[in-house]
């Protein structure tokens, strides 16, 4: 029976072209309206080392990488070793490998069961014969897998034509021959793989974007016209994209000497009345925390896009983790209010960035958007329709407000009229010192207390106005799961599977972490019987943060936390649900 959802993993080393291969499958899928999620991984070698690409294509909605790979292609087993714990195949997977490679492989190591199908393919030979170069191995593979598993073959062929049409005609021709050879080889195979064919109804083409790209587009959409940043994995694509597009919309990109200058540039531009953003990762955010406090104190709008990776220190720079949370919430000296948002998928990256600008500009407060490597660097299909979002502009003070102008005037919301250079009569002198309503420095306790209160007062209206929350599953769930960021994908999928089994499981995913949507969450808590909180942080940063202001159900709270470095799997979530369900059925009282 053909299937609607298929995951392929391709493993090789530099020059094997596995990344190109993944791209082409993803592009072809997207052009056919399929849902695609593609991730890449690399060994420590900068170039020429091991690399892998994993593509999930599906006719149904998908929310994460699959836990298990259905189809694995390995050009050399020694390259695979690097990914052993990262790429697990399904027990009944189809495993293709280079015929010449005689490495002994223990299927159990990969997750393969006795029911797995092992197929040796003379990739090198086929490529050499058909295309005259072993470089065409990947194109041969595309022919093979597209034929065997009914991947969109015509679009893949077009992708090949596209890629090589800029080169000499001979090169294109050779590659098309390689493609054909792969198809031919597939046709000649006598193993029946028809159960593995992908069945889908073609639809409108979809966009294919990474989280970092979506964030960058979000910034431009929100009206950001100044970006300063310092490259750092896994956030650099934001800088790359904006270096191209920002000038086209009339804005500026400055690659600064370090992260201190990056946040400084943002605060300067913002002070000057221009929407501004920076992007970084944990180590860079650490360097920015001093000036984040300045943004809180001088009440400057600022958007800091932070893509989390494994820590501490340089840590695991290419892997995902959810351990920048504390630093984002608490990483400044003094009582320095800020807002923390967190996208949970690629599309969210667009929306949270626009929200971040809206909040920053309306409330004159720094907003940190905590993305993570998982959603930042994976490619995902999106519909154009979902990518629109209302944009708010900074409000110029009314004329009357400029008489005896108080930049930090006390107001019920804590928000004061803000001018910027160019506005005649709006001049003011600000600073990072404690100051009075005019901005004049003071060290008086009473002013300090009043101004602290003013700055924190903004958080309440922000909470009331912005509640970007996702909720899955039935209202009267037995088990309720709370998670954030990229953990959403596997959690949502696990919840849907559980619901399909008739299990009453629900999930709550806040995209606004601070100020936390407390009301909504407490409503959620009331309904459920057993509570699970899931995160990828060894020290359980999210759980501990929740405890600072929430009463979590005593005896019914299951803390699921581990280090990052490996993305959360649906299986892990399902295991937790399995453990929690019986607890829920034995205890009937409502929580909280």
């Amino acid at each position: 029976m053909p299937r609607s959802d298929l995951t392929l993993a391709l493993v090789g080393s530099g020059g094997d072209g596995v990344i190109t291969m993944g791209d082409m499958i993803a592009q072809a899928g997207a052009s056919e309206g399929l849902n695609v999620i593609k991730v890449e991984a690399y060994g420590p070698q900068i170039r020429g080392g091991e690399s892998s690409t994993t593509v999930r294509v599906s006719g149904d909605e998908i929310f994460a990488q699959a836990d298990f790979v259905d189809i694995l292609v390995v050009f050399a087993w020694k390259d695979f070793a690097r990914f052993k714990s990262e790429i697990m195949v399904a027990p009944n997977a189809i495993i293709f490998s280079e015929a010449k490679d005689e490495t002994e492989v223990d299927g159990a190591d990969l997750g393969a069961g006795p029911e797995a199908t092992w197929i040796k393919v003379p990739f090198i030979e086929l490529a050499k014969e058909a295309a005259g170069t072993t470089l065409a191995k990947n194109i041969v593979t595309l022919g093979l897998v597209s034929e065997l598993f009914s991947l969109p073959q015509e679009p893949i062929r077009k992708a090949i034509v596209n890629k090589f049409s800029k080169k000499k005609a001979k090169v294109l021709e050779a590659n098309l021959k390689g493609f054909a050879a792969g198809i031919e080889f597939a046709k000649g195979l006598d193993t029946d793989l028809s159960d593995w064919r992908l069945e889908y109804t073609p639809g409108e083409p979809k966009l294919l974007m990474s989280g970092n790209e979506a964030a960058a587009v979000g910034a431009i959409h929100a009206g950001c016209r100044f970006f300063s940043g310092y490259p750092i994995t896994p956030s650099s694509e934001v800088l790359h994209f904006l270096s191209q597009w920002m000038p086209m919309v009339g804005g500026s990109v400055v690659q600064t000497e370090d992260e201190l200058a990056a946040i400084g540039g943002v605060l300067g531009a913002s002070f000057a009345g221009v929407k501004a953003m920076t992007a970084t990762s944990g180590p860079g955010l650490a360097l920015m925390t001093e000036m984040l406090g300045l943004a809180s104190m001088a009440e400057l709008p600022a958007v800091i896009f932070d893509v989390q990776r494994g820590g501490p220190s340089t840590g695991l720079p290419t892997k995902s983790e959810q351990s920048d949370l504390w630093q984002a919430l608490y990483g400044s000296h003094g009582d320095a209010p800020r807002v923390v948002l967190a996208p949970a998928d690629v599309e969210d990256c667009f929306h949270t960035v626009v929200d971040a600008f809206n909040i920053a500009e309306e409330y004159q407060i720094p907003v940190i958007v905590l993305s993570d490597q998982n959603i930042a660097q994976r490619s995902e299909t999106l519909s154009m329709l979902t990518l629109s979002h209302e944009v708010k502009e900074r409000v110029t003070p009314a004329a009357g407000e400029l008489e005896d102008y108080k930049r930090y005037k006390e107001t019920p919301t804590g928000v004061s009229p803000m001018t910027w250079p160019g506005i005649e009569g709006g001049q003011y002198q600000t600073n990072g010192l404690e100051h009075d309503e005019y901005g004049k420095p003071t060290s008086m306790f009473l002013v300090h207390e009043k101004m602290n209160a003013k700055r924190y007062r903004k958080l309440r209206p922000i909470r009331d106005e912005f509640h970007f929350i996702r909720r899955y599953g039935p209202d009267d769930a037995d088990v309720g799961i709370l998670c954030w960021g990229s953990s959403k994908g596997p959690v949502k999928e696990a919840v849907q599977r559980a619901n399909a089994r008739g299990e009453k499981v629900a999930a709550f995913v806040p995209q606004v972490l601070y100020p936390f949507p407390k009301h909504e969450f407490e409503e959620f808590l009331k309904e459920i019987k057993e509570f699970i909180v899931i995160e990828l942080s060894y020290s359980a940063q999210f759980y501990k943060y929740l405890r600072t202001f929430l009463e979590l159900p005593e005896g019914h709270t299951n803390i699921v936390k581990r280090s990052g470095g490996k993305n959360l799997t649906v299986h892990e979530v399902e295991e937790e649900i399995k453990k929690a369900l019986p607890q829920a059925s034995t205890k009937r009282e409502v929580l909280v």
Partner: protein
Amino acid sequence: MSATETVFKPGSYKTDLKPVWCPGCGDFGVLNALYRAMAKLQLEPWNTVVLSGIGCSSRLPGYVATYGFNSVHGRGLTLATGVKISRPDTTVIVVGGDGDGMAIGGNHLMHTCRRNLDVTYILMDNEIYGLTKGQTAPTTPTGDKTKSSFWGNPEPAVDPVELAIATGATFVARGYSGDMKMLTELIQRGIEHHGFSFINVLSPCVTWRGETQYGIIKEKLRSVPEDHDVTSREAAMRFTREKDVVTEGVLYEVHEPTFGDQLEAIRKKAQGGKPEPSTKEILKTFYPTL
């Protein structure tokens, strides 16, 4: 009164905040020279931004009735970059101390020089950390005893002028807060200069370096020779690491594209005369191109 009719006098730029400086502090001279230079140039307060880091000297923006920002230690130039690049029509002036600009902020100084950002930077050099009560600064002479160098400063001093020239500033001058006329002129010329103008001002700290500083400087002070070729990096370098004299005046001035010019050229090239793409148009580029 509309902007065009206004005539700005030095006093027009005064705020009602009283300077916290010690009586006799060199920074008063810098502030007054700045007021005068601004008046000479008739800078519109609402189109002028004065920024700084932290230090006695960095308190200055609070006393100038333009847009002003006394930011955090060492980072004045980073904010100035954001201001000038995002709002190129404003006149941007940055001030700070030797510690602010050469110690904690040294990297930003170096890179802002290199980029030739079109702002004027006034380094108020008192050879000491004034605000924190008398510690060694990068410009403190070797061997001098300070609060943080009980046995004498073990480090050679930096010459800010040398650093500015070597790292690419296109206008480099040395001034003295006790010479109001010259300083006013230097600041005026610095603001007029299209590109990064660096003005190293000897501005004595009477509290932690003593009143005698004025005498010491006056003794050594001389003007830049008439025949000095300001466009020669080599010639300008001769006025660095001076021991027995202190040369005042414009030491170096050349014309190079500013950072803003370069970014503007990029915008032109990128836009190619076409209107700004909409979000939708940008998004469309993410459709597979098969």
